[in-house]
């Protein structure tokens, strides 16, 4: 009786202690996650407060819809980011058109069809692509790829949107493959077996069961890799020639928003209108990538619901 009591007290004590440690760990982890949120808000606040003078003195609509980006013109400085938006859109669109089919095909092959031996070579090879610094891709585009493009299309501009788009596609593929392969792998084995039990072939199972089941993950992977393409800086800076013009021609030189910030921020006069306008470009870029991420989240949630 006495011994039992003692044991019970000890047990209660231990339980109390473990609750204490639990709350302690909870608080620490909460703080750590709050740091991330705080960092996001700090970046948001900083970019928008620095961009505000540009929006107010140029005019927000004029800033977004102006056709000329020439902030250092001695006679008539213009701060219209439409050419930069156009450049970013053209390059990212080109990259997506190249990367999405290749990425999805690659994922399906790797996840469902490849022989384990081939997979063990192919997968690390694709992952290495993700580890190469973007400046190396840019240099390759500047020196080698641009020559190939000139040889094929016999075009005037060596550095053009296509040059950047191909390079960005190569950078998007590893992200897309590793994220969407995860989605395919997490489709329960039961579903596959059920399909086979109904007499479905491997291809029918793939098309009718596995891909629809993993679609949310694949779609999110595509969105996130597009986000990567929109935000990529060094490669497009070196590959695209940096001419702020509005065009639909993939073989024309273009300038992206990221390249404009990178190339001009280094030498702009501190606190000048040009300086604030570059932050304005950054703010627009922030909104675009933020929107892409939110869309990815929504897509994920929606498809997940439909599947369950």
């Amino acid at each position, binding site marked *: 009786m006495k011994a039992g009591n003692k044991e019970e007290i000890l047990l209660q004590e231990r339980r109390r202690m473990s609750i204490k440690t639990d709350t302690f760990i909870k608080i620490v982890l909460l703080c750590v996650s709050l740091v991330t949120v705080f960092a996001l808000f700090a970046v948001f606040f900083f970019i928008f407060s620095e961009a505000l003078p540009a929006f107010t003195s140029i005019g927000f609509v004029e800033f977004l819809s102006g056709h000329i980006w020439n902030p*250092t013109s001695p*006679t008539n400085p213009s701060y219209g980011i439409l050419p930069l938006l156009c450049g970013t859109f053209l390059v990212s669109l080109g990259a997506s058109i190249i990367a999405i089919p290749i990425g999805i095909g690659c994922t399906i092959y790797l996840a469902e069809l490849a022989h384990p031996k081939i997979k063990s070579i192919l997968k690390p090879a694709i992952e290495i692509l993700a580890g190469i610094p973007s400046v190396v891709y840019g240099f390759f585009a*500047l020196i080698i790829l641009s020559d190939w493009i000139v040889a094929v299309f016999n075009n005037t501009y060596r550095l053009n949107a296509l040059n950047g788009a191909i390079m960005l596609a190569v950078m998007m593929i590893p992200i897309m493959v590793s994220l969407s392969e995860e989605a395919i792998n997490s489709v329960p084995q039961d579903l596959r077996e059920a399909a086979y039990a109904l007499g479905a072939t491997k291809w029918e199972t793939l098309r009718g069961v596995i891909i629809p089941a993993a679609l949310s993950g694949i779609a999110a992977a595509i969105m996130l890799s597009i986000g990567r393409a929109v935000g990529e800086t060094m490669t497009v800076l070196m590959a695209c020639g940096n001419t702020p013009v509005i065009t639909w021609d993939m073989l024309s030189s273009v300038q992206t928003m990221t390249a404009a910030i990178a*190339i001009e921020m280094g030498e702009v006069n*501190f606190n000048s209108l040009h300086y604030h306008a570059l932050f304005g470009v950054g703010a627009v870029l922030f909104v675009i990538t933020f929107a892409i991420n939110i869309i990815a989240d929504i897509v994920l949630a929606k498809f997940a619901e439909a599947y369950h």
Partner: protein
Amino acid sequence: MERKALVAISVVLILAVAGIAAALFIGGGEKPITINQKGSDTMLELCQVWAEEFHGEYESISVIVSGGGSGTGITALISGTVDVAQASRQMKQSEIDQAIAAGITPVEFRVAIDGIAIIVHTSNPIEVLTLDQLRGIYNGTYVNWKDLGGLDMPIVAYGRQSTSGTYMYFQETVLKNENYTTNMQQMAGNSAIVQAIMNDEGGIGYVGIGYAAKASGIKILNLSKDMPSLSYSPLDKDAVIDGDYVLSRYLYLYTAGTPTGALREYLLWILTDGQPIAEEIGFYALPDQIIEEELEKLE
């Protein structure tokens, strides 16, 4: 027990602080002097070599040089965060006004001469351009080399990014403050332009003489004010120094007020012993007469 530990820690802390303070106080007299410098990227390599060589001779003075562009350096000088700004262009009136409003009188020193080279692909038969033709290329009037007597091939103009001092100098001198053609490809640096021209048969670009002279696989054009008969190469030292070569310019250092002490020593050294080094880096040394004019500012 705990209280004892606390007392011990406080004692150690107080002793440490006192020790550091004493060390600073005693060592104050021999503290090395540091000169902070910032500005033009074109001059970055030159200024870094100057700083190193100068420190080799005057060990107690070290010079810390960083880049960022002429505009950035001048802004830093005005805000008092650096002692010297290096600039590949003269200060604008607006910048001088800003400095005076901040209580700083900028003093300008010419420290070397640069010739901007116009470069094309080696296969381009053009040898000479007049200033007007060059302006026509960069404002978009000429779009094909055959308009200038060359091959039937589109002209692809390469230039620096809009915030570079060289971009502004070229816009003032060649374009007479007109806008560049929107088709000009903006490159982030001199060597990027050289690299592009090497591979582009229709390309034309402008770079500092140091970059063009060292590169192979490109052709440096002669320039003339108006008639092709009187053309000069940027490799011709005398033509650049006398200003016969139309795209020659001074490179500058700016200080806040007339420099004294270590800063004076530094500028004195650049204007004398530093000049041969400028030639080694690929720029041109100042003529004696200019050096004397600049030395007078140090009196």
